């Protein structure tokens, strides 16, 4: 069965949808840009997590994918943008070394991983320690800070209202992830993991 959806940067929404499909007895077989292909399974046979890996270089993304597969998980690459052009080049100053220039043959359109685990009744978490969760949420926040700076600057220098609106909109995800970081940091003051 094929379904067509686009979630963009709404990672939690995509994750919830996939878990809802699993609850109805469908597990993922294949992903396309918009397409999700499912096959029948027992209800809740598998659990899903959607993870942002846009900051990783091609090599490190692949290394991480293999690590997750060795853990016994099934892993799918997924795009976060919707763009069909072929010679795409994106600059990502917020990424790690080796991932700052993203092209179609490296990390562009491979910004997300969908990770599937056989349901063993235990919660499925990828990031468990406080320090690692802070690192992960910062990673999710930083691209939006970059958008804010770029669109903010364009909004001011080009007197573009559209750019200004984009800049303003990026404040929501920044605030969303920053709140999470701040909350976890407070816990770090008296608890370690």
């Amino acid at each position, binding site marked *: 069965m094929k379904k067509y959806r686009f979630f963009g940067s709404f990672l939690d929404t995509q994750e919830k949808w996939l878990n809802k499909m699993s609850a109805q007895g469908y597990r993922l077989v294949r992903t396309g840009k918009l397409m999700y292909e499912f096959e029948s399974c027992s209800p809740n046979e598998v659990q899903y997590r959607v993870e942002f890996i846009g900051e990783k270089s091609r090599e490190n993304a692949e290394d991480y994918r293999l690590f997750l597969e*060795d*853990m016994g998980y099934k892993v799918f690459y997924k795009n976060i943008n919707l763009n069909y052009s072929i010679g795409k080049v994106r600059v990502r100053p917020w990424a790690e070394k080796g991932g700052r220039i993203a092209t179609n043959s490296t990390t562009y359109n491979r910004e997300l991983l969908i990770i599937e685990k056989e349901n063993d009744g235990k919660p499925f978490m990828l990031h*468990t320690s406080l320090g690692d969760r802070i690192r992960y949420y910062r990673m999710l926040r930083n691209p939006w800070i970059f958008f804010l700076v770029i669109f903010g600057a364009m909004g001011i220098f080009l007197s573009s209202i559209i750019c200004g609106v984009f800049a303003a909109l990026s404040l929501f995800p920044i605030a969303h992830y920053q709140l999470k970081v701040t909350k976890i940091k407070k816990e770090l003051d008296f608890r370690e993991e």
Partner: protein
Amino acid sequence: MRDNVAGGALTEVTFYILISLYQPRHGYSIMHYIEEKTSGRLVLGAGTLYGALNTLCEKGWISGYGQSTGRKKEFLITPLGREIAQKELSRLKELTEFASEIIGGEQ
């Protein structure tokens, strides 16, 4: 490199990973070993474990073991890692002895 020798505590995750690597293990084995030894209290997420292994390799506390690359890569604690683990054990002993003296007396 030796930033921990001065006396800061290791995180529980770091210490458990070091202990589990007194024999060579790959990621899956580390995760299950720690879960089993803590009776399910400490369950590491795969992302957290991956990050921790990379950091500990960079610090030189653990290293890749044998020829294994890519798939099912195994890790082992290094002499520096053993030194760090030893220091942490001494610190914990001191702490538990002192804590038992104060808290233990109540029972």
